[in-house]
Every structure is written in C-alpha cells, then in structure tokens.
C-alpha cells in the first residue's frame, strides 16, 4: 500500500510539474472563455463609424426608404451616365454605391471598392424590403398592424408529472448537462487513458521497469500509475473550473451586465412558478432555463456521473496499461488500440442519437455494455429516462468488468513489461494470461 502511494505521488508530481501541464491548465480556460466571450466581444467592437452610401435611383420612387441612421448616411446622385457616376463615386471615397434600375421587377446593385460588410448589405436590403412591403400593404388595403395581429408565436411550457407532484421542467437543461457529462467522460478516458499507456511504454523504453519491479509488485506499479494519472486529470479539471469561473467573473465585472445574462440569484427561483420567474426575467425561455437548472436532479446525476466516470476510466486505463506493456514503442500500439478505442468512439457517436431517444433499444444496450455505458448511462440519468434496475445493473456490470479488466491487465502487464524486442500477437497475450 505504501508503495502504491509512493508511485502515485511520483506519477502525480512529475506530471503536474511539467510545463505542458501548466500551460494547458492556463490556456484551456482562456480558450474556453474566449469561445463564449469572443462573439459578444466582436459584436460590441463592431465598427460604428457612419458609412456613406451613394444612391442612384433610376425609378425615383425609393427616396423615402433611405433616411439617414446612426451608422448609415445616404447621398443621392442624379448622374445618369454610368461611367461618370462610377468615377465620381470612386473619387468621393464613399463606402458603397447603390444603383436601382428601372426594370420589371426593379434591379438593385451595390458597388463597393471592397467586399461590403454583411451588416451593411443586410441593412440596405432591409430598407428596400421594408419599403416594398409597406407599398404592398398600401396597395392591398391592409395595414401592417393587421398582418402583425394575424401572426402568432407560442411558447410551449413543459412540466414533469409524477406522483410526487408537478414540477417545472426544461427539456434543454438536462440535455445540455447530459451531453456535457458524456463529452467530459469521453475526453477524460481518451486523454488520460493514453497517458497511462505512454507512461508504461516510457518505463519500458527507459529500461527502468525491471529496477522498479524488483522493489514493487507489477500490480502496485500499474495501480499507482493509473490512480496517479487520474488525480492529475482531476486536478486539471478542478483548475479549469476555477479558472473559467474566475475569467468569466472578471469579464463580467469589467464589462458589466450588458454582455452577460442578468445578474440572477438562483435562490430566489426556488419554489416559484414560471409566471413569477417570467415576471422577474421578462422572458419565458430564460425563465425556463434557470428553473431547469434549479430543479435539475443534481444529486442522482452527480453521483452516477462520478461512478461511471471513475469506473469507465479504470476500465479503459487498465486496458491501455496492458497495451503499453505489450509493445516496445508507441508505433506498435495501433493493432491493440483499435479494438479498445472503437467502442469508446462508437458510444460517443451513438450518444447523439441516444439523446433524442433515451428509452430505445440502442440506449438500453449501450448503457448495459460496460465499454460504452460510462458515456451513455450518465446521459440517460441526466435526462431522467431510465429505470432504477437499469442503473443498478449497468453500474454493477461496469464495476465487475473493471475489476476483471484490472485483474487481466495486471497479468498481461506483469509479463509484458519484461518482454523486449518481440512483436506481440493476440495469441501471445492469451498465453500471458495463463502464466503463473
């Protein structure tokens, strides 16, 4: 036990002290935050200088459509000669030249020296469309108000109903959380499972392994490595979480509420109806989302997330460790990696379908098979679309299979780490399993 701790400590410390770990830990949240903040930021940074657009209107009917606004100013020109008109536009330094030809239907062309901004293009076409629509309403003898009152849009309220009562539900929130859980588990298993494999190969390549196992049992070495690397991953996630919160908080306080959702204290939403929430927020989608977060079944989800997260990692990490022990270098890992990674990738790909149909046969089988259940089952739990017996069965199978895989991997590992210069086949691995 003491030895496992020593190994764990070494595995943990050498990785956490690496420059790449520190850089990833800092850069990760910055990238993540940038992903959320950048679009808002760019929207705010949008060029708000007033642009001047020359307008030549052959029909002479559109003048009232082009009133100056905060960022667009329209200059009308009566120059009928096309070349002269274009010459004077180029000389004027205006942003664009809009030409409306009198054809049937009218033809609209926008010239500019550089490709025009999307927003300018949209604003100009919006002006024209609005003008034509208004003309049409006039011609048809109906007012815009009539049209507006005929149109409708509804918001579908969703509740969950059970014997315990009725509760406000949000379809979006569990979906988001479930999918986030699947992504995190998938990433975690992949990134850190491969690190376990690399670590084992490194010890083999450096020839340090025999020195080690004259002091510790191969199983202790494997266990210490797997757990140590798991703790590296947890550290990274924790730091990412804290740093992301910190960055988001910093941005919020620096740039104020105009780019962030309104400052809301989740506590005030407990036990209130969606109407009341709506009154506070003035928007039923935002109200539902926040209520969804508050009413979300956090306890079950977090507990099952942890179980499937840890179980899945241990299952895959032990397989990766066995692969690492069987080969001499990383290029030889391909033939063994494939059968291990395929179920993982399959589960991830399938999870997108399972989110849409969490009670189907595929969802059931994927959440029972231990190689895929770590990714699929947490989604179903988050969506609350599972039977208790399914959860218990899936969890128990996972736990049993990681015990079995750790046991089998330890056997392969024990023989493999001392084997050099031999291309290993599956038949060979089978033999190793039976060595005493």
């Amino acid at each position, binding site marked *: 036990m003491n030895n496992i701790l020593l190994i764990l400590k070494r595995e943990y410390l050498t990785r956490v002290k690496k420059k790449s770990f520190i850089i990833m830990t800092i850069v990760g949240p910055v990238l993540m935050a940038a992903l959320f903040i950048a679009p808002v930021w760019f929207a705010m940074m949008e060029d708000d200088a007033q642009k001047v657009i020359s307008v030549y209107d052959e029909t002479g009917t559109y003048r009232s459509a082009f009133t100056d606004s905060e960022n667009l100013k329209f200059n009308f020109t009566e120059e009928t000669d096309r070349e002269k008109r274009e010459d004077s536009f180029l000389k004027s330094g205006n942003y664009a030249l809009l030409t409306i030809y009198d054809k049937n239907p009218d033809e609209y062309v926008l010239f500019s020296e550089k490709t025009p901004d999307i927003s300018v293009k949209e604003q100009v076409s919006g002006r024209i469309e609005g003008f034509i629509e208004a003309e049409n309403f006039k011609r048809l003898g109906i007012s815009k108000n009539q049209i507006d009152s005929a149109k409708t849009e509804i918001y579908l309220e969703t509740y969950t109903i059970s014997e315990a009562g009725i509760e406000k539900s949000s379809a979006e929130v569990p979906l988001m959380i479930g999918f986030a859980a699947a992504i995190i588990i998938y990433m975690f298993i992949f990134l850190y499972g491969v690190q376990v494999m690399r670590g084992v190969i490194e010890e083999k390549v*450096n*020839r*340090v392994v*025999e*020195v*080690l196992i*004259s*002091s510790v049992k191969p199983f202790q070495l494997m266990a210490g490595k797997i757990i140590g690397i798991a703790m590296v991953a947890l550290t990274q996630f924790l730091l990412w979480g804290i740093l992301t919160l910190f960055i988001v908080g910093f941005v919020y306080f620096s740039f104020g509420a105009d780019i962030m959702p309104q400052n809301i204290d989740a506590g005030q939403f407990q036990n209130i109806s969606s109407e009341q929430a709506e009154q506070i927020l003035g928007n039923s989608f935002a109200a539902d989302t926040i209520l969804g977060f508050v009413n979300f079944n956090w306890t079950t989800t977090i507990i099952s997330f942890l179980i499937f997260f840890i179980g899945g990692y241990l299952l895959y990490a032990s397989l990766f460790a066995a692969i690492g022990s069987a080969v001499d270098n990383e290029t030889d890992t391909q033939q063994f990696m494939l059968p291990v990674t395929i179920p993982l990738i399959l589960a991830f790909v399938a999870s997108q379908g399972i989110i849409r149909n969490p009670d189907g046969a595929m969802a059931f089988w994927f959440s029972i098979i231990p190689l895929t259940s770590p990714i699929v089952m947490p989604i179903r739990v988050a969506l609350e679309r599972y039977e208790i017996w399914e959860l218990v069965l899936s969890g128990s199978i996972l736990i049993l299979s990681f015990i079995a895989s750790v046991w089998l991997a330890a056997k392969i590992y024990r023989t493999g780490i*001392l084997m050099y210069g031999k291309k290993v086949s599956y038949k060979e691995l089978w033999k190793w399993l039976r060595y005493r």
Partner: protein
Amino acid sequence: MEILKTNKVVKQFENHRALTDVSINVDEGTIFGLLGPNGAGKTTLIRIINQITAPDEGEVFLFNEKLKPEHIKNIGYLPEERGLYKKMKVGEQALYFAQLKGMTKGAAKIRLKNLFEKFDINGWWDKKVEELSKGMQQKVQFIITIVHEPDLLIFDEPFSGFDPINSDLLKKEIIELKENGATIIFSTHNMASVEEVCDNIALINKSKKILDGKVSEIKKQFKSNIFEIVFDGNFNQFSASLTADYKLIEHIQKNQTVQVKVKIQNELSPNDLLSKMLNFGKIISFNEVIPNMHDIFIKAVNGN
C-alpha cells in the same frame, strides 16, 4: 553460513525450459559468479530470486527462510536491462528508489548524500538524468542498487556498457562491498573478472547447472596435467626422447631457448618429467599449466 539457497528450481515457459532442477548455495560474505552462455537461464534464476517471477517447482531460501515479499528489502538488484527516468532529477530519483526499498525519506537522504560524496558526484543532485553521460548514469544506477545497504547484492551483467576505467572502479566497489560484509551474486560473460573477484561459481548451460564450486577447486579439477618447460637446449633431441607416457602439445624455439608444453599421461608424476628434462640442457622454468576460466567455460559448455 548460507545466505541463499535454491533447491531444484524449475521454470518452464511456453516453448522452452528456462531452468531444470537448478540448486545453488551462496555463502554469506562471498562473491558468487553465475556463468553461462546467452539464454542459459541465468536471468530467469535471478528474477526468481528477486521474486519477479515465481518458479514452477522448487524453492528458494533466504536466511534459511522461504522467500517472502519482505525479503525484497534485503536484496539490491542491478538488472541487465537497466535505466532511469530521463526527465527526473538524479537526487529525487535516487530518493524515490530508496523509499521504494522501504527506507524513510530522512534516512535515505543522509545515506545518499554520503554515497554521492564517496562517488564524487555531489554536484549531480539537481541534474536531470538525460543531462548525464551513459557512464555517469551507470554510477547513479549503482548507487541506487546499494543505497539501502542490502545483505545480498545481485548484479546481472554489471560490466556491460562500462568502459575499462569504470569497469575497474566497479570491480573495486564490488570487492569493497564484500569486505563490508555483503554477499554478492553476479552473472557475467567477462571471465577475467570472474577469476579476479569470484570465490564460487555456478555454470548454467541449457537450463541446467553443469558445474559449481570454489573457483580454485574448479581450476584444479580442470587441470589436465600439462606442464610448460622453458630450457636452453636442443629441441630435436628432446622430442626424440619422449616415450608414449608423454605427449608433446606445442613447442616454440627462439635461438637457443625452447618452450614446450607436455602432457603427462598414465600414472607418472611431474617429477619424472623434470628428472628427464635434466638431460637436455639448462632448465629456465617449469610450470604446471592451470586452465583459465575462459577455457573452463568453453570446455564445460562444449563438453556437455
């Protein structure tokens, strides 16, 4: 007193037999050479003693107790396939291995500082292993092997990868360790070093022990009654006089000086040969030819 004893150890791998009924006894405070051609089973035996693999049959005793996990602390093992973590600092790494052998951090630190001093590598503590040359790494590796002051030290091919200077240094260290009371087993192909340092040997060939005992006795055992005589005189006269009791192995003549090797057959003694020699001139030297370990090794392996 015996420190280590293996009793009819058998190890079978899928396609080949690594050890067949191998029994060895290693006395406390001696240096024991484990010899044999490549693939004979030496490393397998060493791994069994280190509890890296288990024997299929037979037993191993350390201090007259059946081998158990706690014994690991009493053994220092330098494997043939050896290495260090490249990215780790020398001192940190040495501490880590010492702790894995059951030392406390404090005790390990004191002992390592002393060893670093002794091996004149004080300045390396904070260097990364990858910054050291191969020979320097071997030194560190050696220190790691002996840091926990084990009663039994096992070196598998310790001289491979060492230059002659470091080889000599290592030899000296091994002898010093013995003088300080440690018992040493080492496997090697370097027969000269066997003659220099080993008290006892066992020779393993094709999974079986074919020869063992004290080095001096084995040498005696392999003597073939050949004598080397150097004299000033006439070689032809001498060779003509040899009866069937003597067999001339080789001769070299330089000016007046003749050097011959003669094998004495039947029940004759060297004195008979010597008295015969008196007739052929001035005898300069008369020696028994004692086989070296190199010859014994080849003879034993091929003769088997």
